[in-house]
C-alpha cells in the first residue's frame, strides 16, 4: 500500500492511502484512454447509477429526463475520455462534472419552473472546480444533502401548514387519506390544501424567493 499526499476539499491536506481499488481503476482509465471499450464500459457501469441517482434525477426530476441526460453524459465521456488526466481521485469527479453540465443544459432548455435553477448549478460547479476536486464518497453525500437543502430552503418560505402537507404527502409519499386525517381535515379539503401548498411553493421558487 502506497501513501500519497492529496488536498481534500476544500483546503485540508491529508494523507490518503492508495488502495488496490485505486490502482485497478487507474488501470481501467488508462486502458479506456487507449481506446479499450470494455474498460470504459466497466467504469460507466460502475458509476452511471450514482450519476443518475445523485446528480441527474434530483436535478432533472423525471426518470425520462434523467435517462436522456445519462445517455448524453455517456456520449460525452466516450468522446472526451482521451482528455481525462488521472489526478489520484478516481474518475467519478470528472464524470460528475460532465453529468452536471448536461443537467444544466437540459434545465436551460426547459420552460417550466424547476427546483434547481441552472444558474445556481453553474455557480456550484464553478466553485467546486476552483477547489481541489473531492473524492467520490464526498460527492455522494454532498449531492444528497444539497438536494434536500434546496427543498428545505424552498419549504421555509411558505406557510407551515402548506409545508407540512407537502412533506407528508409528496416527500414522504404517505397516502392522501392518512395525511388528511393527520392534518385534521377531510380528504376534499386536503386536496385543496395540497393544491394551494404546491402552487405557493412553485410561486416562491419562480419568484426567486427561495
Amino acid at each position, binding site marked *: 500500500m502506497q501513501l500519497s499526499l492529496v488536498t481534500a476539499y476544500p483546503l485540508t491536506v491529508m494523507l490518503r492511502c492508495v488502495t488496490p481499488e485505486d490502482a485497478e481503476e487507474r488501470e481501467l482509465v488508462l486502458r479506456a484512454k*487507449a*481506446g*479499450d*471499450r470494455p474498460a*470504459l*464500459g466497466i467504469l*460507466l*457501469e460502475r458509476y*452511471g*447509477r450514482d450519476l*443518475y*441517482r445523485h446528480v441527474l*434525477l*434530483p*436535478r432533472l*426530476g*423525471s*426518470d*425520462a429526463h*434523467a*435517462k436522456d441526460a*445519462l*445517455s448524453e453524459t*455517456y*456520449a460525452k*465521456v*466516450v468522446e472526451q475520455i482521451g482528455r481525462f488526466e488521472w489526478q489520484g481521485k478516481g474518475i467519478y469527479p470528472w464524470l460528475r462534472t460532465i453529468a452536471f453540465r448536461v443537467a444544466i443544459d437540459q434545465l436551460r432548455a426547459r420552460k*417550466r*419552473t*424547476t*427546483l*434547481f435553477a441552472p444558474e445556481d448549478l453553474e455557480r456550484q460547479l464553478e466553485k467546486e472546480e476552483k477547489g481541489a476536486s473531492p473524492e467520490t464518497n464526498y460527492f455522494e453525500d454532498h449531492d444528497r444533502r444539497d*438536494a*434536500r437543502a*434546496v*427543498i428545505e430552503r424552498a419549504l421555509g418560505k411558505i*406557510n*407551515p*401548514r*402548506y409545508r407540512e402537507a*407537502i412533506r407528508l*404527502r*409528496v*416527500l414522504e*409519499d404517505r397516502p*392522501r387519506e392518512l395525511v388528511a386525517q393527520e392534518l*385534521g*381535515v377531510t380528504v*376534499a*379539503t386536503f*386536496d*385543496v*390544501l*395540497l*393544491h*394551494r401548498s*404546491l*402552487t405557493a*411553493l*412553485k410561486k416562491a421558487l419562480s419568484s426567486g424567493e427561495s
Partner: protein
Amino acid sequence: MSGSEFPKPSAKEAQEAQALANALSRRERTSSPAMREDARDEHRGDGDVEANALADFARDLNVAWSPSSLDAASNKTLVARALARAPKKRSSNVVLLFGAAGLAAGIAAAAAFVLLLSKAGDTSVADLAARVPPSAYVTSASTEALFHEPYGSVRSSDRIDRIATRRASDLRENRFRAWGLR
C-alpha cells in the same frame, strides 16, 4: 393556519385540486418511474394542464428528496449504446499491417540509397575500357561465316537475328573483360 382560517375554495379551485389529486393517485398506482411517466402522458389529453404541471412539480420534489435508483439492466443498455458509437480501438492486425508497410517502405528507401551510392561510384564503360589494353578485347569478326546458305534463300529477319546474337555475344564478352571477369 387553522381549519377555521382555511378560505373556502372556488368551484374552479376545487376542480383543479381534484384533478391534481387524481394525477398524483394515478402515478402512485404505477410502480416504476418510467410507468409514472407513461401515466402522466396518458393524462395529457384531458386538458388539465395545470394539474399536470403541479403533479410534475410534486414529482420533482419527490425524486429530489429521495431519488430512486436506476436498474442495472437499463444502465447496461445505455452504456452499450454509448460504446457502440465509440470509435474502435486500432486492432493488432491493423498495427501489423501498418508495421509491415512501414518495413517495406524502409527497405525500399534503403535499396534506393544503396543504388544511389553505387551509381555515384559507378564507372562509365569508357573508363573501364580505358583500363584494359585494346588487344585484350574480342574483335567483332565478319558475320559472313554465319551464312552458309546462298544469299536470298534465308529470310532477312533470320539473318539479322544471327548477326544481332553474335554482336551481343561479342559485347557481353568484352564487358566481362573490361570488368576483369575474364
